[in-house]
């Protein structure tokens, strides 16, 4: 019943809509592309010879009935053009249909004879597809008008009134528009040809591409065309909601440090969960990704299942493949200018108390323990009336340090095109992002240039050079924003202090207004990156048909230079008695301090692979055999002088000559990898699909015996829609594919260090010098050096192994009224590298120095669904498509090192729960009366107004054993996105909704008036003697303190739905002026980022993961841009 009603529903949609096509997320490069350029040279050749030339170059195979083709015909042609044009030229009498990797030739229907006539007549006809199937919902209209359109019925029939010399257009989504002149006929039938859709598009997989139709793995895609809509200067933030199965969270908005956190299908390991990012085939460019611009990106493909196994030991967390744009042959030069002006502001800032609330709440808090008030009546009155701004200011610190809006600019020029042999894409790009602070010392600048050039050297040899150079400037004040930095202090600064005196003089103390400026010095980093790629593609068809060799050499150089200058600054001090201001000097260090850091990284990646791709009468074989190795070296140098006589010159030579003040350090790191990999594919008539992947990987991260690993992946697919029982019976089901995969992948990220590098030598005992140990001591009269041992060695350390299963069912209805991809996935990660510090007692001396051991097991499973829908309305002038994606992924720890909580405390176990599930005291209520205090078990030190915690182990005391394991974390279990794109006339609209669910954020509100300001809601609602009914805890540093005793009270739902992106564009119609100055296209647009958020969390942005309000907030951006093409 359910199924038939679904069918009915779809049919009724057919009746309403005019045309529908399945639309996938993005357009990507096509392997078999009717638009691809080929060169055919034939002198009086046979048709077969010409066809073979076309087949070789285009990778298409021709399909025809022998009877339809005249093989005696001789052809002379010498032309470089698109496949489509050439085939049409050779077979002017044939209908040419491109489908999958086939070109289908059928005899053309004879056009109907023309007759004259100008009066309006009634025309009838039938609309069918090329296979003769009547099409419902096709729209028939008179070309050039919007009115009087007709729609075909279930039998494909239509009736329309039109002038007898009119031109009729038949339009149906999934098919190319067809035109016919009426010429007085009363019967005009249309036969529609299937439109190329993304179904036939190629998908970038490891070391090659594959047709979406015959793909057996799980790959999510998006394109540069989509990503340019992201207003943020950080590209990684643009992925949120656009990629099915990818969790993207923006945890901090600080310019230069705002990379999103990405997890593919959630988390599966207790160790490093970050996916491998490969840019233009080169791994090790992970840091580059977020700094690319949408304009230079062709596509982003995410390998989510066994298809990632081709990347072996680094593939377990999934692989993100980024492809940059390249030029097209035989295309005239096209120059594009873009400019975007963005205005940023924080999405949300935690609301803090003002001076009136703060002082009153402080007094009320003191009253609970019988203490005298902190502020007397007179003082309270001063705060209320605000009559004395010198002594009794009332400060909103965020207003004091944050601008209403801050600017960002993005601008770029690109030139692309190509001649017969050379194709080029060249782009220059610049970005500027201001910090949100007033008198901000924070900003981010980036300049990059990319040049991708391909040269067809000979008929069979193609060389490519890709160069990308980028300079990044990250500028900050000497004081950090995060990590006990500006936001930590701004949220804690009391409202009873102030940044400036009423006369504008700067005040002293730890003044946030100082910290955001460059008064304290600066912390600047310049990053210079050069990525180079040299590629060669040698077609060896001359040896064996379908054979080719690819090779590449990539050399990347990254240089980072950081300079940190901390100096003294001037402030004013007011004397209440004399009522005079005195200028003073403040400093964190007694004299200026300069530190410089230089990091140089070199990566050389070599790759060679042999490709084979051939079809033997429907038996299609592909093969890949590859070799890859990479070597990496990092050199680090630090030089600093901790004493300067003056702050006039911030250079090392100007520092103290006393060597005691020197602060120098340096080291190097090297890594090496070597891999052999291969892929074998077979399909029969694109119907039955098989693929095997294998990679043999060696990494220096492990001891010699455990160094090499083998990582296989297998997958299979069955295109049910190609089977007669569907093709002939369920005709509306235009695509249905069942696919499954299984792979074993690795993760070699052992002991990831804070700088992202890997602690590679855990199998041996190592020692290092320590500096900066505050407990250091002197022997004799000189400083001594200190060596401490590193981790306890683990001689058995080796890979993590992920066993990944994937089952998918893809389909589309009527060429895309509705399209879907439904996937079920499961990963069992074992040999997970983790330490045993939860169970090994401290008296062994080991827990702080344990190495990673291959002991953890985690299961992760879930489901993904992508749906798409496309429609054309009103004679094709209004076109829209909608895509939605949804993922649910939940992991569960099968085994990990765990504290032996004991029999009575199973509710504390982590095993069986998701990673990161924490322990929380369960709040039952508030101790509102003395009786509550006496009748409930209490934590040591509890008073009135403190939480009543549940005594889970019923021992009559509240101890750490009364904490319960709670499953949800800041990493959501559900993510979803909904993308809506529409064009109407010259307007275009794009809207992206993104959200997450089953996520929780733990926060520790600021409730201690002694240490600083109070969070507004906590202060307003706090339990006091005058507010005994309150269900909020008392203020003060008590057992209800959220940062010390983590409880369910502060464990809040972080689900949200967010209008991530909204863009409205207008393409200015072609006009005389444009033609005169050569403008091809001019589009202006308005966009917004994070415009609207619906979430139960009101105090902070729901993507925040920081528990103590100390990260730079997420940004909302209003953007205006222009794109001009010549």
């Amino acid at each position, binding site marked *: 019943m359910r199924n038939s009603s679904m069918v009915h529903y779809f049919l009724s949609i057919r009746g309403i809509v005019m045309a529908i096509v399945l639309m996938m997320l993005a357009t990507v490069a096509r392997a078999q592309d009717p638009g691809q350029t080929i060169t055919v040279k034939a002198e009086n050749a046979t048709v077969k010879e010409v066809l073979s030339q076309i087949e070789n170059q285009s990778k298409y195979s021709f399909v025809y009935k022998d009877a339809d083709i005249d093989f005696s015909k001789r052809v002379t042609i010498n032309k470089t053009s698109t496949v489509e044009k050439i085939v049409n030229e050779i077979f002017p009498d044939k209908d040419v249909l491109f489908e999958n990797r086939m070109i289908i030739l059928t005899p053309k229907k004879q056009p109907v004879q023309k007759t004259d006539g100008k009066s309006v007549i009634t025309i009838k006809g039938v609309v069918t597809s090329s296979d003769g199937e009547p099409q419902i919902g096709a729209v028939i209209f008179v070309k050039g008008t919007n009115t009087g359109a007709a729609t075909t019925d279930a039998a494909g029939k239509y009736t329309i009134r039109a002038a007898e010399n009119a031109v009729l257009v038949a339009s149906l989504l999934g098919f190319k528009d067809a035109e016919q002149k009426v010429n007085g006929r009363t019967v005009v039938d249309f036969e529609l040809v299937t439109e190329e859709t993304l179904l036939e598009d190629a998908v970038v997989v490891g070391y090659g591409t594959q047709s979406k139709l015959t793909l057996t793995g799980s790959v999510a895609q998006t394109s540069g065309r989509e990503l340019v809509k992201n207003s943020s200067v950080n590209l990684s933030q643009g992925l949120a909601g656009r990629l099915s199965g990818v969790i993207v969270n923006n945890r901090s908005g600080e310019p230069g440090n705002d990379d999103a956190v990405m997890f593919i299908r959630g988390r599966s390991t207790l160790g490093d969960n970050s996916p491998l990012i490969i840019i233009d085939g080169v791994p090790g460019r992970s840091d580059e990704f977020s700094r690319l611009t949408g304009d230079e990106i062709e596509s982003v493909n995410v390998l989510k299942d066994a298809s990632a196994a081709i990347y072996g030991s680094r593939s377990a967390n999934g692989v993100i493949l980024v492809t940059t744009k390249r030029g097209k042959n035989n295309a005239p030069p096209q120059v594009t200018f873009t400019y975007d002006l963005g205005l940023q502001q924080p999405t949300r800032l935690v609301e803090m108390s003002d001076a009136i609330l703060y002082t009153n709440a402080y007094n009320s808090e003191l009253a609970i323990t019988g203490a005298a008030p902190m502020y007397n009546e007179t003082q309270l009155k001063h705060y209320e009336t605000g009559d004395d701004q010198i002594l009794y200011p009332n400060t909103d610190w965020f207003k004091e340090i944050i601008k209403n809006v801050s600017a960002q600019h993005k601008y770029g020029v690109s030139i692309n095109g190509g001649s017969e042999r050379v194709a080029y894409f060249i782009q220059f790009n610049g970005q500027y992002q201001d910090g949100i602070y007033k008198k901000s010392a924070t900003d981010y600048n980036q300049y990059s240039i990319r040049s991708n050039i391909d040269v067809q050297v000979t008929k069979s040899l193609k060389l490519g050079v890709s160069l990308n150079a980028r300079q990044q400037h990250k500028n900050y004040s000497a004081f950090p924003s995060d990590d006990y930095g500006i936001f930590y202090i701004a949220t804690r600064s009391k409202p009873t202090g102030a940044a400036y005196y009423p006369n504008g003089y700067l005040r002293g103390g730890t003044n946030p207004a100082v910290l955001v400026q460059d008064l304290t010095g600066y912390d600047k980093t310049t990053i210079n990156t050069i990525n180079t790629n040299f590629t060669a593609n040698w077609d060896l068809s001359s040896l064996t048909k379908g054979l080719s060799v690819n090779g590449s050499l990539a050399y990347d150089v990254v240089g980072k230079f950081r300079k940190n200058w901390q100096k003294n600054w001037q402030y004013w001090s007011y004397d209440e008695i004399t009522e005079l201001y005195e200028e003073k000097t403040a400093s964190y260090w007694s004299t200026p301090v300069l530190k410089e850091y230089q990091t140089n990284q070199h990566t050389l990646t070599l790759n060679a692979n042999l490709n084979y791709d051939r079809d033997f009468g429907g038996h299609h074989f592909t093969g890949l055999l590859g070799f890859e190795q990479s070597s990496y070296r990092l050199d680090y140098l630090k030089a600093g002088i901790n004493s300067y006589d003056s702050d006039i010159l911030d250079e090392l030579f100007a520092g103290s000559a006393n060597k005691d003040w020197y602060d120098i350090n340096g080291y190097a790191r090297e*890594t090496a990898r070597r891999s052999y990999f291969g892929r074998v594919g077979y399909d029969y008539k694109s119907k039955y699909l098989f693929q095997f992947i294998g990679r043999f990987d060696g990494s220096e991260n492990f001891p010699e015996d455990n160094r090499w690993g083998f990582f296989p992946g297998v997958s299979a697919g069955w295109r049910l829609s190609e089977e007669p029982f569907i093709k002939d019976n369920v005709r509306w089901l235009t695509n249905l594919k069942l696919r499954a995969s299984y792979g074993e992948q690795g993760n070699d990220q052992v002991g990831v260090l804070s700088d992202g590098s890997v602690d590679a*030598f855990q199998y041996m005992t190592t020692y290092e010098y320590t500096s900066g140990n*505050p407990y250091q001591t002197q022997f004799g009269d000189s400083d001594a050096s200190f060596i*401490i041992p590193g981790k306890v060695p683990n001689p058995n350390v080796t890979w993590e192994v992920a066993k990944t299963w994937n089952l998918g069912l893809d389909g589309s209805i009527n060429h895309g009224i509705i399209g879907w991809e439904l996937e079920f996935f499961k990963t069992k990660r074992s040999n997970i590298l983790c330490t045993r510090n939860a169970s090994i007692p401290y008296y*062994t001396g*080991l827990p702080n120095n344990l190495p990673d051991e291959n002991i953890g097991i985690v299961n992760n499973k879930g489901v993904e669904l992508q749906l798409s829908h496309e429609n054309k309305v009103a004679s094709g002038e209004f076109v829209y498509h909608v895509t939605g994606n949804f993922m649910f992924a939940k992991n569960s720890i099968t085994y990990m090192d765990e504290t032996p909580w004991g029999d009575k405390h199973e509710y504390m176990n982590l095993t069986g729960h998701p990673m990161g599930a924490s322990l929380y005291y369960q709040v039952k209520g508030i101790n509102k009366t003395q009786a509550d205090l006496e009748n409930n078990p209490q934590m040591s030190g509890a008073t009135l107004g403190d939480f009543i915690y549940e005594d889970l182990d019923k021992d009559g005391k509240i101890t750490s054993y009364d904490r319960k394991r709670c499953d949800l974390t800041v990493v959501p279990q559900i993510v979803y996105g909904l993308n809506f794109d529409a064009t109407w006339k010259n307007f275009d609209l794009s809207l992206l909704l993104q959200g997450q669910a089953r996520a929780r954020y733990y926060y520790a509100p600021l409730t201690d008036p002694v240490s600083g300001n109070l969070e507004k809601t906590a202060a307003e609602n706090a339990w006091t003697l005058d507010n005994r009914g309150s269900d909020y805890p008392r203020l003060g540093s008590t057992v209800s*303190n959220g940062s010390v005793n983590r409880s369910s009270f502060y464990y809040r739902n972080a689900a949200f739905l967010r209008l991530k992106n909204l863009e409205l564009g207008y393409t200015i119609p072609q006009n005389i002026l444009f033609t005169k100055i050569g403008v091809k296209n001019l589009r202006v647009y308005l966009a917004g980022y994070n415009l609207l958020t619906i979430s139960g969390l009101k105090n902070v942005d729901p993507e925040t993961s920081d528990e103590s309000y100390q990260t730079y907030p997420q940004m909302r951006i209003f953007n205006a841009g222009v794109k001009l093409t010549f």
Partner: protein
Amino acid sequence: MASCTNDFLDKTPLDKLSEDAVFGSAALAQSYVNALYTVIPDPFQEGNIGAISDEGYFRYGGTSTRYIASGYMTPDNVMYMSEGGSAHNSRTTILNIWNRAYEWIYRMNYFLNNLDRYGGSIDEKDKDRLKGEVYFLRAWTYTNLIERYAGVPIVTKAYSLNDDYNAARANFDDCVDFILQDLEQAETLTPDKSSCVKGRINKDIVMALRSRLTLIAASPLFNDPTRPEGGIFRGTYSADKWTRAFNASKAIVDRADVEGAYALDNTYDGYWKNTDSKEIIWGKFFTNTQGNKAQLFYSVVYFNGWTAFEPTQAMALDYEMKNGKKIFEEGSGFSIKHPYAGRDPRFYKSVASPFSVYANTDNTGYHETVLDLSLYYEGKTKADFAYGKKEPDYTSKSKHLWHATNNMGLELNKWYIPTSPITESETGSKVYPWFRLAEMYLNYAEAAYNVGKEDLCREYLNKVRSRSDVMMPEVTESGESLWDRVVNERRVELAFEAFRYFDVRRWKTAPFYENVPFAGMRTMILQSTSATDTVYRVVRPYDETKNSTCYYWPTSDASKAYKEANGEDVTTLFTYKWLGKEYQVDYGDCCLNMCPTQKHFPKVGDEYPNYLMPIPANEITKSKGTIVQNPGY
């Protein structure tokens, strides 16, 4: 295939050293041992251990230091005092050392067990010296452990990944014996003072630790005649333990008095200002670039310090007048008009009181300022402060700089060096004395008293009192009164040096001292139109209390008034025994009505759990019960 790829994949660390290198080179092995010296952090923590005893007050709320002081220490919250949680957690590292100590013991054991496997190029003499240092450091670490936890697991092996972890706590006496064995090894292997650079372990330092260790082991907490049976939590009672302590102390005292190797510094502040002071037996010598933070933590906010530690009135009370009498004794000459005048000279070197001269150095040079911690009341007289009245408004001279940043009315002077700047990057080269001669004298005096040698006890108390810039009158008492003098002399001489917390525990007197009302004293300047009057009032330290309904000090009148009004006794009258007489010290009724005592030494059943530190809860859990908890927790 593997063979042809190995060269490419074989990498060596370029940011670390190998074990062969470290254990095969005298210089690198020395550097390894250097690191072991950092095992016990210096007590210059932001939350000074003195703030947990009755010496002082830690002004920052929400911290473990406050928790411990309030008697709320549990096996749970002692964990977040050193792990995870907020930035304040390192503030009591000196107290909760379980994890840290064993981490370093592992490194010591690894060294002792593996040095001989390598060390080809290290000659035997150097090896012996290095081993001697490590034996001492291990003894030092275990002494610090048993002082806090009583019997602990004796670990001499370096555990590895696949061992069974089933150690149990050893008996207290066995721990002491084990430490004494290590000390014997250390004494044999380490050089004499004369052939040893400053800061490195020599035989004298070994003797000094033996003096301290045996004194601890002889003290009532661990050697209790009322609970003579021994075990994990205390030793078996034996009067001989005092003899052992006496002999151990005599050995190091003789090094000074007989051999002249050490002498009391001429000035009381010499041992923290002068790194070459003859009084120092062993110290932590702060480096030029890694200095101590005492200067920053404890100096006044006005000069960019944090005033993290403020001496209490209870502490000030125990400084005698220059004539040797306590302030409440008849004939002491004490005047409330000048409450800090005419005291033991050590008071001024240890404590900064209102209107004393406070000096500092910044980048513009050396400055002297009068330390003004007063509240200013314009147009008010004493009558405005009469009992039961609400406190009048005050006007302060520089509200945000002076009094608002001090609670108790006193500041710490000890450890402070006016000629060094007060900054985050404290770099003035200074010393923290781990062992100094005055302690050895006092250890000796205490042991002498307990073995019945009262003459010797008095002699050594008086030696300490007759330092040339102290010159306090001689102690002449005997019997219990002499014991009072021993106790007070340690309190005053060793003030703010992390002794008091442990002393009142090993003497089992903590319930008395740490349940006293916890008070400070604030100066109030009343400015009538005609004259300026100064009033002192006792305040509780709980908050910045400028508005507490507090009264003049001493407040016996107010106490009487309170009793009349309420029919209850003023429990802030603190009965204080001094030299055989009882005195009542009144801490002011503010403490009575307004707040619970801040210091609290709780009793659970028959036990005072806070005599010993709790073992961290998760250590008990991880050990699956082989490690037992201390009593009362």
